[in-house]
C-alpha cells in the first residue's frame, strides 16, 4: 500500500481527527480557564444592588460547599477570580433584602471563565 493510501485510510484519519479535535479543545480550554465568574446583582425591580455579599458554592461529590465570597459594587457587579470547579452555584445576600435565588451554573470545563447573562435577582426591592 502506498504512503498516500495509508495516510487516507480510516486507521489514520479517525485517530488523527480525534487528535486534532482534542488539541483544538485543549487550546481553547487553556485560553479560557482562569476561573473568572462575573455577574450582577439586582433587586426585584431590576435596580443594581451594591454591597451585596455573593457566595460561590462548588460542587463536591454529592453536595455543594461554599468556596468564596465577593461583594457587589455600586453597579451591582461582582467578580470571582479563583473558581476551580466545573459546576457551581451562586447566591447573593444583602441587608434588608434577604437572599436571592440560588443560581446553578454548569460549565463545560473546570475553571471556565463565565459571565452571567441573567443577574442574580432578589425577591424584594430596596
Amino acid at each position, binding site marked *: 500500500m502506498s504512503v498516500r493510501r495509508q495516510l487516507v485510510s*480510516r*486507521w489514520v484519519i*479517525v485517530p488523527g481527527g480525534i487528535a486534532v479535535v482534542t488539541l483544538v479543545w485543549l487550546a481553547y480550554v487553556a485560553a479560557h480557564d482562569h476561573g473568572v465568574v462575573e455577574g450582577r446583582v439586582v433587586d426585584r425591580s431590576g435596580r443594581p444592588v451594591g454591597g451585596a455579599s455573593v457566595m460561590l458554592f462548588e460542587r463536591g*461529590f*454529592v453536595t455543594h460547599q461554599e468556596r468564596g465570597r465577593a461583594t457587589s459594587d455600586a453597579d451591582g457587579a461582582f467578580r470571582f477570580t479563583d473558581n476551580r*470547579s*466545573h*459546576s457551581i452555584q451562586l447566591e447573593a445576600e444583602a441587608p434588608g433584602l434577604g437572599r436571592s435565588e440560588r443560581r446553578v451554573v*454548569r*460549565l*463545560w*470545563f*473546570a475553571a471556565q471563565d463565565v459571565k452571567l447573562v441573567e443577574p442574580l435577582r432578589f425577591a424584594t426591592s430596596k
Partner: protein
Amino acid sequence: MAESTIRRATPLLALRHLALVVVSFVMLVPFYWVLKTAITNENIYAYPPGILPREPHLYNFVDVWYLIPFPRYLANSIIVSTIAVIGNVVFNALAGYALTRDFPGRRAVLALFLSCMLIPFQAAIIPAYLVTAKMGLLNTYFGLAFPLLSTIVCIFVFKAAFEAVPRSLIDAARIDGLSEWRIIVRVLLPLSKPAIATNVILSFIWSWNNFLWPLLITRDPLMQTLPLGLARFLSYMEDTTGALYAFAVMVLVPSILVFLMAQKEFIRGLTSGATKG
C-alpha cells in the same frame, strides 16, 4: 431472472428485511436508552417512559470527567488494551504459524489448546494470580494485560488464515532464502489482514471490558481501569442516573469506534475459516 421469480422473491425479501428490522430494533433500543438517559437527567423508572429526550444536555459527561479521575482511568485502559493487542497479534501469529507446521505432538498440542478453551478463566484465576505475583507484575500495566497477551481463539483465527495461504507461496519464499520469521512478517501477515483485524478487535474489547482480573491485581486506585472506575463511581454516587449512563457511554465509545473501523476485516476474518474447503 424471470418476472414470476422476482414476484415470488419480493414478499420473501420484504419479510426477511422486516425480521432484520425487528431484530435490529430489539438490539439497538437498550443503546438508545443508555444514550438518551446520558444526555438528560430523566429517571429511568419514570412511567410512562419518554421516548424522546427532554431538555437534552451534555453536562453529565463533564461531571464524569471531573468527579472521578476519568482521564487517568481512560489512560490506564488505553495502555493495558494496547499492550494486550500488541501481545495478541505477535504471540498468536507465531503460535498460529507453528500450528500450521508439522512437528511431533502437533495433534496433542491442538487437543490441549482446544480442551483449555473449555476451562473458564475464573477456574484458573488463582494460579494466574500466583504466577503474576511471582513475576512481580501485580499492580502494573503489564500485569493487567498479562492473561490476555495470547488467547486460544485468536491463535486459531491466525492458524485458519495462514492455512488459507497457498503452500506454494511459502515454499517459493523459502527457496528465495527467507527465514521462518521473515515468511511470517513479509508473506503471511500481509495476506492475513482480516485475521489481524479480528485479533485487534477481540483482544481490545476483551481487555477493555475486563473487570475481574484488574479488580484482583490492582492495589493503587490510580492503576484502575474504566470498568473498575465505573463500579467505583456507582458505589460513590447517589442519584446519578444521567451521570452513570454518561460514564457507560464514555466507556463504550472507544470499543465501538475500534469495531467500526475494523468491522469489514473482522467479519471477513471470522468467516474465512468457516468457508474454507
